[in-house]
């Protein structure tokens, strides 16, 4: 195994990072929270992804795809955190920190609880499609899978989400 390249970005690349990546940090953090066990894990994932994006900004050839490129790195970082956190305890609600949202606390907790019950791949697809508002084509690009696969995964993940939300609501 080799280390990832530890290389400082030059001034032009720093400017590119600031222009192309930093505006998406908020999105990335929301996305990482949807995939992560808690806010701290999401912060770790985004920080790590930002560092890698900063190192590799030269590899980003199409400025227009910066958001998708960065979110791809975030997905990979979250997967790395999943592999690190082996235990059931790290994937429960403990440590989840509420932020200020318009939904009631109960409903927010329901959504978080349901997301954590989903298969991780389903969390990713659902979050890309409905939280990041990506098209099926963009989602396919981020995940490196077929558009038809994204459609199928989205449908079954959404079905599962509805099913679990129904359970939460006592339906």
């Amino acid at each position, binding site marked *: *195994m*080799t*280390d*990832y390249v*530890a290389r*400082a*970005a030059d001034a032009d690349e720093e400017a590119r*990072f600031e222009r192309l990546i*930093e505006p998406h*940090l*908020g999105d990335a*953090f*929301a*996305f990482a*929270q*949807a995939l992560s066990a808690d806010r701290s894990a999401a*912060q*770790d994932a985004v*920080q790590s992804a*930002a*560092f890698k994006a*900063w*190192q590799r900004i030269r590899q980003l050839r199409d400025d227009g795809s910066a958001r998708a490129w960065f979110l791809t790195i975030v997905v990979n970082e979250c*997967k*790395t955190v999943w*592999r*690190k*956190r*082996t*235990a*059931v*305890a*790290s994937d*429960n*609600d403990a440590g989840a920190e509420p*932020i*200020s*949202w*318009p*939904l009631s606390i109960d409903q*927010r907790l329901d*959504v978080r609880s349901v997301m954590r*019950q989903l*298969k*991780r791949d*389903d969390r990713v697809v*659902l*979050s890309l499609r*409905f*939280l990041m508002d990506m098209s099926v084509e963009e989602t396919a690009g981020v995940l490196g*899978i*077929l558009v038809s*696969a994204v459609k*199928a*995964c989205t449908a*079954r*993940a*959404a079905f599962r989400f509805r099913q679990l*939300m129904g*359970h939460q609501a006592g339906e």
Partner: protein
Amino acid sequence: MDDDDIRQALHATYSSSGTEPTVTRDLFKQQAAKPRHRRVVTSLVAVVATLVVAVPVGVVVFPRTGVNGSSSASTTPVLDLHMFGANDGWAWAGGDEIMHTTSGVGHWTIVPPPIGSQVVVGVDWAGADSARMLTAPGASENELEQTYTVTPWITDDAGATWTEGQPFRVLLEAGADPTNGPIYADLDFVDPTHGWFFDNQIVSVGGPTFIYRTVDGGLHWSQVEMTPASGKAARGSLPVGCSAYGMTFVSPTTGWVTGSCGLATLFDVTHDGGATWAPQAFPCINCALYPPQFSSPLDGQLMGGSGESGLFVTTDGGRTWNARAGAPGVWPDFVDGEHGFALGVTGNDNPSIILWTTSDGGMHWGEAPDGALHGNGPDEESQLDFISPRIGWAVSVWFGNQPLLSPGQTPYPTPPDELWQTTDAGSTWTLVTPTFTTSQ
């Protein structure tokens, strides 16, 4: 609830409003200036149920030193470490980097199976000199279910030679090397002869479940269980539409599949090697259960719950299970029916890392003697692998990347990659820097 409702719920729950983190590029420069090792971890290497304790131990990147102590710039991330004794054990660094030791964790011999470009579906340690591996074509590194040809690999001489078994076709969600993504398949041997292979991914979204069994050490595999994605399962099959988290066997005949069916507990048992399954009574009717780990043919533990996770134990080979006190650490490691360990922290405002122990099977937990580690031992995110009430190891799984900082905040210190060893029940810990030899 339609797609727009899901969209609204996710946005309302996760979209940040002025809370997005900032990055400090100066920190990136400092970070980039330091030589760093990539850390890789896996949580999904199979939960093992051999007759000795078999807890998968996370990952640490060992700096690799060449033969005879010559230095090398490369590193070896250990994805799974399992010691069968103080000196004998296995570790896996991903791909074909299987490592074996007969001299303790301080020195490893890399004994790669000839898998070429195949990706690893599962690895299991069937004995101190016996390892089993399943691989699939590299193209199977996809998150979608397809039918793949899976190839078994077997060694019973500590990796000196590897035998290729009879390939078989199986529907897999993904045959993914966990260095490149999580894997979801369980490969579980109770001895060098009897093993099972279970893809537990698809069932969580309503796909079919397959279990394959070998009775000749992994050379040949046959399907013993199939539960369809929908409709009605055949009599004696696993239930349809459940989320199966994993599979554990304690003997050539008896094993469990655990998870949840909606909000109900999934805890099905087989007594005929996986051919037929039936629900078993469990002291929680709405728990999601992770597969048990057995430290002896009689003593086993599992974690599960319906919110907070708790510990359940058996002392009669899995016939009955009882709830115990919540373990203070993330994932306790038991060496027998009585003695268990867990790393955690004290609950005050200035927390110390504590090694917690139990000597009554998890009914009570207390600090180990000199249990506060004060930096002279593994961090709280390390994972434990004890082989006796006194001898064990801990591998650091701290990623080390700086958390996002607000202006003026001080970055956390970054601990190095670490492998710790104790021979006195965790009172004192010694940092180990392993060396590596390549067998070929």
